[in-house]
């Protein structure tokens, strides 16, 4: 009875966050299978620590677990890496801001060629912030937690990235050039 009630509360907290967990997992891994594995490991860890969760901000709680789970995965595969190097392995976004442009259409994006090429011109760090905030819908704080950088860094990268995207979209005629 007790377990059933706990399960129900856990499901209620997690169900609505599955999409965002998967989207972020795709940014941090190379394939959709890796992303699923990461989500699964995250759910298991979250369930185990659910009795210590205060019920506030489930998304932030889950994203923190997801990020730490990913770091542990990377560390296990590459024990020679230092902490900073592990952090630099995140995220694993490809040229278009997706984890792997050739992967299956797990995330059915409709990136137009113009926007795709604009994102491809960004550095991985700048692309990651745009992907997390603009495509995955994370707040500045959530993106900062996932990337383990200060909120101010998220904001400045976002600013620079959008400026670059705007220049590109104006140059190719996708956005009107201001007079």
């Amino acid at each position: 009875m007790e377990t059933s009630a706990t399960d129900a509360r856990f499901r209620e907290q997690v169900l609505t966050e599955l999409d965002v967990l998967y989207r972020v997992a795709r940014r941090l891994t190379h394939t959709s299978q890796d992303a699923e594995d990461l989500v699964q490991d995250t759910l298991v860890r979250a369930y185990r620590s659910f009795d210590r969760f205060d019920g506030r901000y489930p998304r932030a709680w889950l994203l923190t677990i997801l990020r730490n789970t990913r770091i542990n995965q990377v560390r296990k595969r590459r024990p020679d890496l230092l902490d900073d190097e592990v952090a630099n392995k995140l995220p694993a976004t490809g040229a278009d801001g997706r984890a792997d442009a050739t992967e299956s259409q797990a995330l059915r994006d409709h990136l137009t060629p113009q926007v795709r090429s604009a994102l491809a011109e960004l550095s991985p760090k700048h692309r990651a912030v745009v992907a997390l905030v603009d495509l995955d819908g994370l707040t500045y704080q959530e993106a900062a937690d996932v990337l383990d950088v200060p909120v101010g860094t998220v904001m400045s990268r976002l600013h620079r990235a959008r400026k670059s995207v705007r220049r590109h979209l104006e140059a190719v005629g996708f956005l009107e050039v201001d007079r």
Partner: protein
Amino acid sequence: MRWLSRDPTPLPARPSCEQVGAVIQAYLDGELGADDAEVVAEHLRHCDRCPIEADKLRRVIEAIRAQRPDLAPDVRSQLEGLLDGVAPPAIDD
């Protein structure tokens, strides 16, 4: 430059264009506190220059966000399956 929405110093009641420009991104992203957001909105209603800059940024944000991916239904089912493995759904009597 004052980038941060969480800057402990609130915007003055009549901010300069430079002060508004520094927080316009946070304003458009819905990351400003309510009081600061109202100050920026008021500034934009009366300024000749800032609404043009705000509009440029708003259009690029909209262009990117219009591309937000959907999760394929089969992936959604798979994810719910993962959740079932951790916390099974209650069975109604």
